[in-house]
């Protein structure tokens, strides 16, 4: 019976072929480490955010006089409303954590290198969408930090040449952040996740075209590729269990550690909080914004700091595959960059002092410096490594990649 149904479907839709091609027969490098779990985890958190978000939207009211109250209604009166809300608010942090680890893995192993540039760029687009979604979602509880955060960030668009003031009004729908802003942010906060789902599909189609990279950086022989299902489904589900333990610890025991106390005060346009801080996942970029004394410069620096990642395929000029695996200089640079991000995050968190401003400026210089120096460092490192002698497998791959490139050029 089941076979007949499947036959009936297969006649009209490539179901069996799809499952075979993308799951049970999809070749995946067997040496993937647990760092390759995070793409799947990001997908899981996306579904979780959409699912909890839809139920929250059933009880939430996007109106400046009602939204703060409606959150308290969800927290106190709706059955398990507190659970939905904490799953969602903690989920935002979890999403960024997972995505940042996913990006760090790509950087470390050089997975952005040819032929995976499109994966990296669609990923960059996804990061921007995620940031926009999180930023707009943060306004919805209409607390003090929601209001002032949105005010500060929308104000940055004043840096747009010639039409800055108009752009800010256009974004807010009013002269200040108000009811018009809240309702449009709610509408867009509901829309963007579906754009993200669409972009994720493109990301996955690209993935299944170029296939996963792997820790060695060398294309594995056919026998070293194993089917995605059941090997990587079982591995992903085990990783999911570990992730859920950490996530649920936060949801059930420390959910308010991720919510600023000031956001438990209803938005008050007449009273600025003493210290406006964004959520932790924006802190490094916020520190870069504050490091530049000039507003337009700060905005440009902040925008550029997020977009710098997209240039990695051009900036990294080393022909040695495998990212940090075969490249000691690159590895040191990677860890220093992570450290720099932590310093920036810390500087973004504390109220600005004379010392912290200087530290933030030095850290900002290091941030951009590590990108701009990469072409020279990577080339010098390559020369040094070639002189020292590389493993034969790496040499073969470099030769074959060079041949591939020249063949494509001559065509």
């Amino acid at each position, binding site marked *: 019976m089941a076979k007949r149904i499947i036959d009936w479907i297969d006649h009209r839709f490539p179901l069996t072929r799809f499952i075979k091609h993308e799951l049970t027969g999809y070749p995946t490098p*067997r040496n993937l480490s647990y760092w390759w779990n995070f793409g799947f985890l990001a997908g899981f958190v996306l579904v979780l955010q959409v699912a909890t978000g839809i139920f929250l939207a059933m009880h939430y009211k996007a109106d400046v006089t009602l939204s703060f109250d409606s959150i308290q209604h969800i*927290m106190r009166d709706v059955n398990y409303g507190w659970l939905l809300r*904490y799953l969602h608010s903690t989920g935002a942090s979890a999403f960024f954590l997972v995505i940042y680890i996913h990006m760090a893995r790509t950087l470390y192993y050089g997975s952005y290198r040819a032929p995976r540039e499109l994966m990296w760029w669609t990923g960059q687009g996804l990061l921007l969408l995620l940031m926009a979604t999180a930023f707009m979602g943060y306004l919805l509880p209409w607390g003090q930090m929601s209001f002032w955060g949105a005010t500060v960030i929308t104000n940055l668009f004043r840096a747009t040449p010639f039409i800055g003031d108009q752009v800010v009004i256009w974004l807010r729908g009013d002269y200040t952040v108000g009811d018009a802003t809240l309702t449009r942010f709610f509408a867009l906060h509901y829309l963007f996740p579906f754009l993200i789902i669409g972009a994720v599909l493109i990301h996955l189609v690209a993935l299944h075209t170029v296939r996963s990279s792997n820790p060695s950086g060398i294309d594995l022989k056919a026998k070293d590729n194993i089917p995605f299902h059941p090997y990587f489904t079982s591995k992903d589900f085990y990783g999911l269990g*570990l992730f859920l333990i950490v996530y*649920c*610890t936060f949801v059930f025991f420390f959910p308010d550690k991720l919510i600023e106390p000031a956001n*438990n005060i209803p938005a008050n346009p007449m009273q600025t909080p003493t210290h406006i801080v964004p959520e932790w996942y924006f802190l490094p970029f916020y520190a870069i914004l504050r490091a530049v004394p000039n507003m337009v410069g700060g905005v440009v620096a902040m925008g550029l700091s997020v977009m710098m990642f997209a240039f990695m395929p051009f900036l990294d000029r080393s022909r040695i595959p495998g990212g940090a695996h075969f490249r000691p200089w690159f590895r040191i640079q990677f860890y220093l960059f992570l450290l720099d991000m932590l310093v920036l995050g810390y*500087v973004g968190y*504390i109220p600005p002092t004379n010392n912290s401003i200087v530290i933030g400026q030095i850290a900002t210089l290091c941030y951009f410096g590590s990108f701009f120096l990469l072409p020279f460092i990577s080339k010098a490192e390559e020369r040094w490594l070639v002189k020292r002698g590389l493993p034969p497998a790496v040499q073969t791959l470099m030769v074959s990649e060079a041949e591939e490139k020249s063949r494509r050029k001559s065509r």
Partner: protein
Amino acid sequence: MKKFIAWLALCSLISTAGATETKLEKIQVDTSMAAVERGIDNLMGNCHNCHTLKYVKYHDLLHFGISKSKVDAWRGDQPLDAPMTGLLPDTAAMQSFGKIPPDLSLMANAREGGPSYVYAYLLGYYTTAEGLPGNHIFPETKMPDALGISSATDEAQRAEIKSKARDIVSFLTWAADPHKAERHRLGYYVIGYLLVLTLMMYFVKKKIWSRLE
């Protein structure tokens, strides 16, 4: 590398400098039923005349376990599902204090330091050299010294006021997050379940991967 270590050291210096500005005595909130109930008794006597608790409804108190007769006495002729709004009209508040006293429903979560802040604030009153009331924690406050800590001199009286403040904080902590106990209870089950599930997933993964040579 050395440079980075130097920066980190600098950062930690700054953070310790910042921490001394608001030094709150960190208190352990007593979440027991008895403490919360003593807390609401004190709150109804000392705070509720001016402050609202608009997100707490009278039936929430019943649900928590406060006796029906007590709740009925507090609510008067208001229905059970009415919020605990205050008794002080806004205009009168503006006349006496120049501002409307803040709602207390979320107070235990709405300040840096949480319950410790509220406790320190309630006990932060003193009499200035000019004989005026002052508060160490929140100098701009318009609230009078409701518990009378600034005029209490003998130790027994001060201890009593301190325990009153502790109980009020216990109640406010409950009021700010009434599902906390339930959340923790459920949390232990969820984490326990996930530990078992994850362990099983680990063995499933191991079993499947053992097929590879």
